[in-house]
């Protein structure tokens, strides 16, 4: 079965990103497909490569990136939500005249249409948030 996943909260503050990650991993382990993981609201903050969590803690961003690499996951950060919250890739930084960018490997920035499309194409859409 094909799943679409919506993550509405950032890393660490709420459990949503953890639960979504464990759900995705379990779904993959059972042979299901993940059509797309869409990060909205504060969820966009899962896509920053500038986190430095404590040594004895999980690295939430890194494990999303690694899972994406391993399973060719499509991790999409909503552009409108990202702009409000300070997430950008190199292209966005250039377009907006910013001197830095912070998107992590395995994530891409795109529009809300990608969320709707996930709802249409996936057999189930599951929402994680606060």
């Amino acid at each position: 079965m094909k799943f679409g996943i919506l993550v509405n909260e950032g890393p660490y503050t709420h459990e949503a990103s953890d639960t979504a990650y464990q759900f995705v991993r379990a779904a993959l382990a059972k042979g299901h497909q993940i059509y797309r993981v869409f990060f909205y609201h504060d969820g966009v903050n899962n896509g920053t490569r500038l986190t430095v969590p404590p040594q004895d803690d999980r690295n939430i961003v890194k494990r999303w990136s690694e899972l994406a690499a391993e399973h060719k996951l499509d991790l999409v950060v909503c552009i409108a939500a990202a702009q409000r919250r300070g997430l950008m890739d190199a292209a966005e930084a250039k377009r907006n005249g910013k001197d830095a960018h912070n998107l992590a490997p395995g994530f891409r920035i795109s529009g809300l249409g990608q969320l709707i499309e996930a709802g249409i194409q996936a057999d189930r859409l599951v929402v994680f948030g606060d």
Partner: protein
Amino acid sequence: MLHTVNKSPFEHRALETCLKFARQGAAVLLIEDGVYAAARDTAVAEQVQEALKTVSIYALKPDVEARGMQNRVMDGVRLVDYGGFVDLVVEHNAVQSWL
């Protein structure tokens, strides 16, 4: 239909609202702080027991264990792991997350 509830029933009305809209035969999965609703002998236990007459109630085991509740889960609430969560989503036509 599968409903998920991730809020503590002692501080938020999410569970109460969920149970109002969950129809006969629906499944409710308690996750994150929502698992506190699965404990015996609390101020909300009766409400949950009442709901068990018409809906199936599950609680996410890793969340139950993290909160030290493994020995306090009431009869009738079934524990599932993340794989069981996935199975519940597969078995139901749609998921409503009561955030």
